[in-house]
């Protein structure tokens, strides 16, 4: 956050370039991103992202909370993909504890994660298209996003800050009728994707604004720490769901969309293809969801059912102890990286053997992805910056934490 320092200029003596301030209230910066653009005419000479406007010190706050109390904090990092953040955190804690989650819990997590990906990509597609000037797509995308949010509300009681996952499983078995609603949505969703694509994929204006714009070479993308669709749009074949499976992703068949063009259009194609793959994964999860418990059998970590708590003394004691003292986690450290809609979402947790984490660090995909902006935009026109920001799909909550 450098807004207290004077505006930097490359070479003031030359008096050739001009510094243009973009954001933090600019509508196409997707939140509070501030960019200092050093321009020569309409050409970008240098681009300096200025972040930190949304920094809330979540990592510090986590150190003062019990392990189970950190889950609601994780929702607020990447607020378009709450379930993915929840999953990354609980997987890391479960790895520390050595807990095994029953299959039904794992499948539910996969299903909800893919719905989250659909939700996040829909917001991205709508806003990205609107930034470039295609207003209609936004309305269509938010229509379907509303359906996904209703599903989230049904399963967790919240539309956005779901906090549905727990260390050791998920909060509750989904309510009756939930799976029918999911199936209903997922059956009509492919036709919706066709609808978006009919508005954009062959649209000459869209192609003109995106093809060949903001090129990112694969070597640069790797060196700059880009991940997710931003990396796959440059032709680097990595997807943590397939390559380092977690939470039972090895049981699902899906393709990893790739595009070698490395421009805005390529990243658009990759994400739209990911929407279709996510739809297939949700369908597989629905068809094959096993019966059984959704929580691990670990009374010292997992809260007991309400019914048991009211009838069994032991359950009541465990409930009281978990709520008042938390549960202790063995000493050690883990890093758990998963594939969020934006890239590699990683949690690094250090435990000192107490009920509160000694250190929680979030490796935020948007934070790393933001660094590619300079490579994409330098030497190009100002109008392309908007397309480039949209195409890396940053969430400022994720950048600043």
């Amino acid at each position, binding site marked *: 956050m450098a807004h207290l320092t004077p505006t930097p200029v490359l070479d003031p003596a030359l008096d050739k370039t001009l510094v243009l301030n973009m954001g933090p209230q600019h509508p196409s910066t997707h939140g509070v991103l501030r960019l200092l653009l050093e321009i020569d005419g309409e050409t970008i000479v240098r681009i300096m992202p200025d972040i930190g406007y949304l920094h809330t010190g979540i990592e510090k706050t986590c150190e003062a909370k019990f392990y189970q109390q950190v889950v609601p904090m994780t929702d607020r990092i990447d607020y378009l993909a709450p379930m993915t953040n929840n999953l990354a955190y609980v997987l890391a804690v479960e790895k520390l504890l050595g807990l095994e989650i029953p299959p039904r819990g794992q499948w539910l997590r996969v299903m909800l994660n893919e719905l989250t990906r659909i939700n996040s990509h829909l917001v991205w597609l709508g806003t990205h298209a609107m930034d470039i000037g295609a207003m209609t797509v936004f309305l269509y995308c938010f229509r379907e996003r509303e359906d996904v949010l209703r599903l989230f509300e049904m399963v967790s009681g919240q539309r956005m800050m779901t906090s549905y996952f727990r260390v050791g499983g998920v909060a509750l078995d989904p309510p009756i009728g939930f799976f029918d609603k999911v199936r209903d949505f997922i059956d009509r969703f492919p036709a919706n994707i066709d609808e978006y694509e009919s508005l954009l994929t062959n649209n000459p204006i869209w192609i003109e604004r995106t093809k060949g714009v903001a090129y990112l070479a694969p070597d640069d993308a790797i060196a700059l*720490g880009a991940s997710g669709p931003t990396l796959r749009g440059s032709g680097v074949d990595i997807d943590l769901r397939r390559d380092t499976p977690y939470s039972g992703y090895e049981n699902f068949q899906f393709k990893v969309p790739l595009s070698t063009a490395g421009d805005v259009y390529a990243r658009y194609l990759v994400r739209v293809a990911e929407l279709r793959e996510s739809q297939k994964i949700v369908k597989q999860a629905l068809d094959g969801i096993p019966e059984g418990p959704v929580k691990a059998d670990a009374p010292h970590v997992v809260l007991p059912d309400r019914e048991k708590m009211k009838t069994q003394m032991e359950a009541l004691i465990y409930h009281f102890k978990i709520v008042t003292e938390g549960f202790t986690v063995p000493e050690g*450290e883990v890093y758990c990286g998963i594939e969020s809609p934006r890239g590699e979402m*990683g949690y690094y947790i250090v435990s000192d053997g107490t009920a509160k984490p000694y250190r929680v660090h979030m490796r935020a995909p948007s934070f790393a992805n933001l660094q590619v902006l300079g490579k994409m935009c330098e030497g190009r026109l100002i109008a392309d910056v908007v397309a480039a920001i949209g195409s890396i799909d940053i969430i400022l909550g994720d950048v600043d934490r």
Partner: protein
Amino acid sequence: MAWDSAVTGVEQLKDCAEVGCLLAWNAAAVTQAKLDRKELTLWIDRTRLREACLTLKNDPQLQYNFLSDVTCVDWYPNEPRFEVVYHLLSIPTKKRVRLKVRLAGDDASVDSLTPIWPGADFFEREVFDLFGVRFNQHPNLKRIMMPDNWEGHPLRKDYPVEGYR
């Protein structure tokens, strides 16, 4: 799924490809090693960090070409106080390794990895901002999250959670 107990010691872990590769390059660079919960951690001598990363990156079998994450842990009041933690990922082999560098509280500085991975830029600025660890030869070592006139480094353990009043 209970974990096997952790294996510690460079000697015990020299069969690991990562340890073997670094030992073959410079036996003094790796000061300690640990394999815990299937995650390999290597402590690197702080003067040799950059060469160690290059060795891991250029080794034809390992190819650790992606810097996932840079962060830091404050062990206040113990000394050496800081541990800077690097997570490397190999995109060809999909393996991960964790490198650590121990730094004393009164001389918390280590070579920047930006010459190898330009993407280390933001991560190192974040560690500098929140922990006060300096990175030598970093191109733009300024605060990134907090305002420029902020006092203190919030993620240090001696910094109160509610801030100074």
